[in-house]
């Protein structure tokens, strides 16, 4: 457990270990920022690298502050990489939100489009589904559940961007989405409509 020993040491050895850990974290950060490049729009090379540098720095601080919570249930490096992965994820989302924030329309219920096609019976069933869904989205969801469902499930706004926009976090937004889906499925089931995603095309 040389990482732990080095990080808990004092003086030159600690300094060297911290520097080496940062180098490793930066490698992970650069690769992950590169993989998420599409989310960074027109960010320049230096901006992209700055995000990786900040992620490595913040992960390093978090790791050094959490050493007592490391229980050796995984390798130290896997545990440490997790911190930088989360940092990159958060920073890329924040950059995406800053440079191209979602529009208000992406959170507002605008109805579902009625696609043509299928047999008359299928068209009738689909119209009934749209009617029940529309009523359920308006009547059975809280304002927050409706905004999250519309943004994440219908308009595919990334959940972390939604979390930033609504001043929340991924876990809480996911819970909002989960509760919204459950309420809508209950409404469809109560109306005698299928809730099997393979059958329900929205």
């Amino acid at each position, binding site marked *: 457990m040389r990482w732990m020993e080095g990080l808990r040491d004092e003086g030159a050895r600690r300094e060297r270990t911290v520097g080496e850990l940062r180098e490793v974290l930066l490698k992970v950060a650069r690769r992950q920022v590169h993989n998420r490049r599409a989310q960074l729009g027109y960010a320049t090379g230096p901006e992209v690298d700055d995000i990786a540098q900040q992620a490595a720095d913040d992960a390093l601080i978090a790791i050094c502050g959490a050493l007592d919570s490391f229980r050796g249930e995984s*390798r130290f490096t896997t545990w440490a990489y997790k911190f930088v992965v989360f940092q990159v994820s958060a920073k890329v989302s924040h950059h995406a939100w800053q440079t191209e924030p979602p529009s208000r329309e992406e959170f507002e219920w605008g109805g579902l489009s009625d696609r043509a096609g299928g047999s008359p019976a299928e068209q009738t069933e689909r119209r009934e589904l749209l009617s029940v869904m529309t009523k359920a989205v308006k009547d059975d969801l809280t304002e927050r559940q409706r905004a999250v469902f519309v943004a994440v499930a219908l308009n595919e706004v990334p*959940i972390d961007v939604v979390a930033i926009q609504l001043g929340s976090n991924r876990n809480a937004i996911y819970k909002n989405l989960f509760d919204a889906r459950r309420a809508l499925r209950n409404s469809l089931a109560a109306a005698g409509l299928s809730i099997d995603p393979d059958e329900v095309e929205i």
Partner: protein
Amino acid sequence: MTPDSKHPLALDEHDPGCGPGEENLDRYVEIEMAGGDPAEAFPSIAVHFRHCAACRADHDALVEAVEELGDAAPSTRSAGGIED
């Protein structure tokens, strides 16, 4: 890992949300990298990763980091440059 999250109404009642996956991601990935089935040790987290694109992306990123860098070790040089 196959995503189940594309449908707007996709839902699994065994999905525990993002918290457990964030907490145990390192352990989950190590089981996977060792050729085991992490869904046996963490069944609800496996369900969550199929439904949450953001957590699945973090999972995939950690797998890639471990694959690429493995268990990197600090140097054994002492301050004077001699192996300790």
